[in-house]
């Protein structure tokens, strides 16, 4: 295995060089972990603020429209759900803002992050079907959307899906390539 042996020689040289230097110190390891936490929490904060803002911009005019068209009960119910979601979202933003990233030990912060993730998943699991069901009820019972609005809604949905697909394509391709190679490897005799 001439080339592999040649690589082995180079590998030994690399190993010797590495033995002479300190690659990473304790403070840097800590910093890496903390920086990751900070990025994750910032990302969540941004996402929460954006969702809240988008929901308000889209749903408040919709609710006003319902009210103006005379669907008072639906408008009030919709507003109540909206208020609940808004308060919930604001509480999450506040909670994330209160986390003291620099003074909490990584292990404790990790627990907080995992709990937050779990609660978010539980919320989506239990509450979102209810919200979606309610929105569909409001839309379908009162024919609020006319033909063109439904078309706009469908176009938006398709465009959104295309953007997500394009964004994920590279990731999928890489994973697929790796999987293909692994399957070939397993099948080799």
């Amino acid at each position, binding site marked *: 295995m001439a080339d592999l042996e040649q*690589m082995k020689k*180079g*590998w030994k040289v*690399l190993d010797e060089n590495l033995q002479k230097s300190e690659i990473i110190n304790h403070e840097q390891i800590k910093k890496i*972990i903390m*920086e990751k936490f900070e990025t994750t929490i910032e990302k969540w904060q941004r996402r929460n603020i954006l969702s809240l803002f988008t929901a308000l911009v889209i749903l408040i005019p919709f609710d006003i429209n319902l009210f103006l068209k005379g669907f008072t009960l639906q408008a009030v119910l919709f507003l109540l759900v909206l208020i609940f979601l808004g308060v919930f979202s604001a509480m999450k933003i506040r909670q994330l803002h209160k986390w003291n990233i620099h003074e909490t030990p990584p292990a404790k912060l990790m627990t907080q992050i995992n709990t937050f993730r779990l609660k978010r998943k539980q919320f989506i699991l239990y509450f979102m079907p209810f919200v979606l069901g309610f929105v569909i009820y409001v839309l379908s019972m009162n024919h609020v959307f006319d033909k063109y609005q439904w078309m706009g809604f469908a176009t938006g949905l398709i465009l959104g899906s295309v953007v997500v697909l394009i964004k994920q394509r590279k990731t999928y391709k890489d994973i697929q390539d*790796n999987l293909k190679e692994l399957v070939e490897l*397993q099948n080799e005799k």
Partner: protein
Amino acid sequence: MTSKETEKEFIGLIGQHSRLIYKICYMYASDGDELNDLYQEVVINLWRAHEAFRGEAKYSTWIYRIGLNTCVSYIRQKSRKPSLVPLTVDLESIAEEENNAEQLRELYRLINQLSKIEKAIVLLYLEEKTYDEIGEIVGITRGNVAVKLNRIKTKLKEMSNQ
């Protein structure tokens, strides 16, 4: 074990195995920035998985598994901000010393001809792991390791003849 103790234990283990992590990342990185990013990704993933480590395997085996998984699934995002944490040590320069630069350049040229999975197998081969150990870490049989290493040998030979 308290949070502080867990943290201390983890930092100690990473310190002990820092060279090993470096070598895994070296195998997959295409430049110094990527090496730095990969190194940090591996440390973060090891930290995430630390609580799941039960000591059934050696910690180094655990590092190989998580490190290789991280590197194989790592996708560089061009728009990404430069390195998460600017490490004070220039990781790229550690490997480069003038008197053996030629050997390392050749090593890197050969590494770059391998696919991600091949790199994993070659890394473990270079680390003098047995075929059984390679198979256990990568998740294939001993026989497949031998076949794959032979294929890699042929591939490298063909490449050098071109």
